[in-house]
């Protein structure tokens, strides 16, 4: 008997890829199961999904946000337990951590991909100005100063209008360098460090310094504006997420060459840290009438075949599968190569710390944008975040 599986997703962007590449591959191998990829505008995804799950009209397969959003669904019996899925063996514990119960006993989504932060730069511009990608913070500012001096390019493309840009591409991008990645993140969760510690305030100070290198009116500059500034060749450096690789390449369309460098370290030879964030996974609607077919599909999603398909179709979304994936895109290779040289960590606010009110992630967005725009000092911002966290998170009280 034929079944049709529906995938709920926020990835409008991937519609084409699923329709043209991934689903046909699966369907060819699994006659009798057809799959429909049914994305929702990203901003509405959580709200719509929750409503549909509550009312029982959601699709069979659910694209999982990392950490609490999905954990909540699992705890509410909306997502099925996938611990026993054979393909789970293909993923490391770190890869699965974003979709496990706090004790790690149950896993409920098959990890799809992670994203890595770093800086992209306009290599053509750098060559024109005779600049090298910086390795240390001092070099970083030297480069920025040089570009500013020259005046042809806006040194760095970033705005504070879409607050998440400042937080994600700024704070979470360079922060691990100061709080030492997993070490600091663990300590914060354990209550051993606080957000007012130097390691957590320093990233804000850096952001505040960036202000001098942004374009005019950056307070009203949105994330797409920043993207456009960079891809149109008007800005030289772009604090990036690896997902932009896939979208920038066709947009730049050969107008200039891109390069990438990881977040600079304090001193030459220091360990570098990168944010390698587990971002997207696929789970099973606990109420799905087609659970068997869906599990078949998820087994396939956990396979190396899928990993290769997916990572190559979406350069910048790096497979979490343990089996190594061959990637064709050179920039994607560059990003993923940092996994070897630097310590990866996930975004500091995602696990556990954003469970209460005020929500640490949202507050961090706000604080990062404020600091970037100069309406709040780094110290004040940090103090405010700490106070908010302490108000509900026992280990910090």
């Amino acid at each position: 008997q034929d079944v049709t599986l529906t995938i709920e997703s926020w990835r409008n962007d991937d519609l084409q890829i699923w329709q043209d590449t991934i689903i046909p591959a699966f369907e060819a191998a699994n006659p009798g199961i057809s799959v429909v990829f049914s994305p929702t505008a990203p901003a509405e995804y959580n709200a719509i999904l929750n409503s549909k799950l509550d009312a029982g009209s959601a699709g069979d397969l659910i694209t999982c946000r990392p950490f609490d959003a999905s954990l909540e669904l699992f705890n509410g019996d909306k997502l099925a337990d996938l611990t026993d899925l054979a393909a789970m063996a293909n993923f490391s514990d770190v890869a699965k951590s974003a979709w496990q119960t706090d004790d790690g006993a149950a896993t409920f989504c098959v990890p799809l991909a992670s994203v890595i932060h770093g800086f992209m730069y306009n290599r053509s511009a750098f060559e024109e100005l005779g600049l090298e990608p910086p390795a240390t913070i001092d070099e970083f500012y030297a480069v920025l100063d040089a570009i500013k001096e020259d005046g042809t390019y806006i040194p760095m493309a970033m705005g504070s209008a879409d607050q998440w840009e400042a937080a994600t591409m700024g704070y979470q991008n360079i922060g691990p360098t100061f709080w030492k990645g997993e070490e600091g993140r663990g300590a914060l969760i354990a209550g051993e460090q606080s957000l007012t510690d130097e390691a957590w305030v320093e990233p804000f100070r850096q952001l505040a310094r960036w202000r001098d290198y942004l374009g005019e009116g950056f307070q009203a500059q949105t994330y797409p504006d920043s993207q456009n500034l960079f891809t149109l060749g008007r800005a030289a450096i772009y604090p990036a997420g690896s997902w932009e690789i896939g979208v920038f390449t066709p947009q730049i369309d050969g107008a200039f060459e891109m390069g990438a460098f990881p977040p600079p370290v304090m001193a030459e030879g220091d360990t570098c840290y990168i944010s390698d964030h587990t971002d997207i996974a696929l789970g099973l609607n606990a109420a799905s009438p087609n659970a068997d077919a869906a599990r078949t599909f998820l087994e396939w999603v956990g396979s190396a075949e899928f990993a290769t398909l997916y990572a190559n179709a979406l350069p910048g979304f790096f497979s979490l599968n343990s089996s190594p994936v061959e990637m064709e895109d050179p920039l994607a290779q560059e990003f993923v190569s940092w996994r070897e040289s630097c310590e990866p960590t996930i975004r500091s606010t995602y696990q556990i710390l954003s469970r209460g009110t005020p929500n640490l992630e949202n507050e961090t967005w706000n604080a990062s944008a404020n600091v970037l725009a100069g309406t709040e000092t780094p110290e004040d911002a940090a103090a405010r975040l700490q106070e908010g966290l302490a108000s509900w998170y026992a280990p910090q009280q």
Partner: protein
Amino acid sequence: MSVARRSMARSIAAHAVLITYTLIALFPVFVIVINSLKSRRAIFADPLAWPTPETFDPVGYQTVLRQGDFLLYFQNSMIVTVASLFFVLLFGAMAAFALSEYRFRGNSLMGLYLALGIMIPIRLGTVVILQMMVAGGLVNTLTALVLVYTAQGLPLAVFILSEFMRGVSDDLKNAGRIDGLSEYAIFFRLVLPLVRPAMATVAVFTMIPIWNDLWFPLILAPSEATKTITLGSQVFIGQFVTNWNAVLAALSLAILPVLVMYLIFSRQLIRGITAGAVK
């Protein structure tokens, strides 16, 4: 009324003001339209420039027409909008007539009750609505949308129409009563035709949010067969990148039917519809 009544200066001043405001109103629309015809690079290189041969790029429209079944989406939107409008106008006018014409106990409470709906966003009731539709097997049908939009449009319709119906001359309705017209006939044959401008206004006010709504199509009828045009256009809004060419093209195209409907309704805005009735 006469030409002589229009003094030259007054009319020039009126035109000056109106043209100024029209420019303000249309300038952004102009920006949208010219940019929907340009390549992405050209949009941001100089958003104000006309599309030139180099920058002209109908890629947005091409993308739109390639992606999904836009004709079907249009048709769905039309069906939903027209059907909802019909019920909103009919039921709304009937209720408004009852409220404005008859004194009965609880009249103002009923008026208030029917106005509650404009005070809370109906989105908040989404889960319950969706549960009802699931129970009724209406998910992924246009009927579900029509029901929700009818309910959503009623409060405003009742609110506006009852005010306008109060302005219909009592003598006129009484003449009808003496002529032996039933209350229904008075409503349908006398009052409705006389509040045409108000009906047109309500129709326009009701139509726009229905046409532009994204939420309920997403929740109640996201299937390919029942997608509305607004929902269809959302495909181009991505997580990190939005295909503005396509979004602009899709939404520019999506304006046209509403604009046509607006033009149709605004023809009902007629002066002197009650002229000659009473002295």
